[in-house]
């Protein structure tokens, strides 16, 4: 039984991490047109508790994508330099959508495991109900 509860916690940690990831994806997409915005990336790492691996996952530090910012030509823009360009963001919408899809797929897999563990413990408890 404790294994099943452990399963629920592991799946929940996975869902939490993926939800965090998709939150950053939406932040990137929302700021796709913000001048000078660097897209945020998030990495996953194994959770440690008192130096021991719990097997759960957690999202690590947020890092900024250091790719070059896109140059947008608009001489009328207040931030334009002498050539008429200003710094846009380095968000690539296709990459963000792909990332969001992947996060969704992983989230669903975690959810399925959560549901299965729940059903398994439920059928275990059914044995007592006679």
């Amino acid at each position, binding site marked *: 039984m404790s294994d099943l509860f452990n399963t629920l916690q592991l799946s929940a940690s*996975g869902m939490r991490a993926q939800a965090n990831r998709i939150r950053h994806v939406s932040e990137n997409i929302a700021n796709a047109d913000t001048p000078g915005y660097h897209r945020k990336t998030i990495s996953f790492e194994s959770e440690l508790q008192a130096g021991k691996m719990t097997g759960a*996952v957690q999202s690590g530090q947020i890092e900024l994508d250091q790719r070059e910012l896109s140059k947008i030509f608009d001489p009328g823009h207040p931030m334009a330099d002498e050539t008429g360009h200003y710094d846009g963001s380095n968000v690539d919408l296709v990459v963000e959508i792909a990332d969001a899809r992947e996060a969704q797929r992983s989230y669903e897999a975690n959810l399925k495991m959560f549901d299965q563990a729940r059903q398994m413990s439920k059928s275990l408890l059914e044995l007592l109900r006679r």
Partner: protein
Amino acid sequence: MFDKIEIFRLANSLAVHSANRQSVIAQNIANSDTPGYRAKDTESFSDNYKNSDSSVLRTTRQTHLTSDAARNTAAKLLDAGGESSPNGNNVSLELEMVKATEVRHQHDLALSVYSSSLNIIRTSLGRGR
């Protein structure tokens, strides 16, 4: 009392093993995007059951020392292998789903065997269903 009967012991071990394996699968899936994570798996039930059987000392009297914990030894963790992606992670969600379905069947099987054996005993005691 009932765990001394072989079939209950078998059903119990199978249920414990499948819960254990489910936990390992959930861990793999939770870490399916963690860089450098290697997929794990438990050894198969038949191996685990055989090993746990031979390693436990036979008890012929109530006073003999035994440990229930030793009987249901936690299955050893194995590296599940498989192709790894560029970030060193080798979890395949599809494979894990297949394993999860297997585990589900195993667990259902264990519970069905347990409850129908219980019914047989009830019937033999004259209580019926």
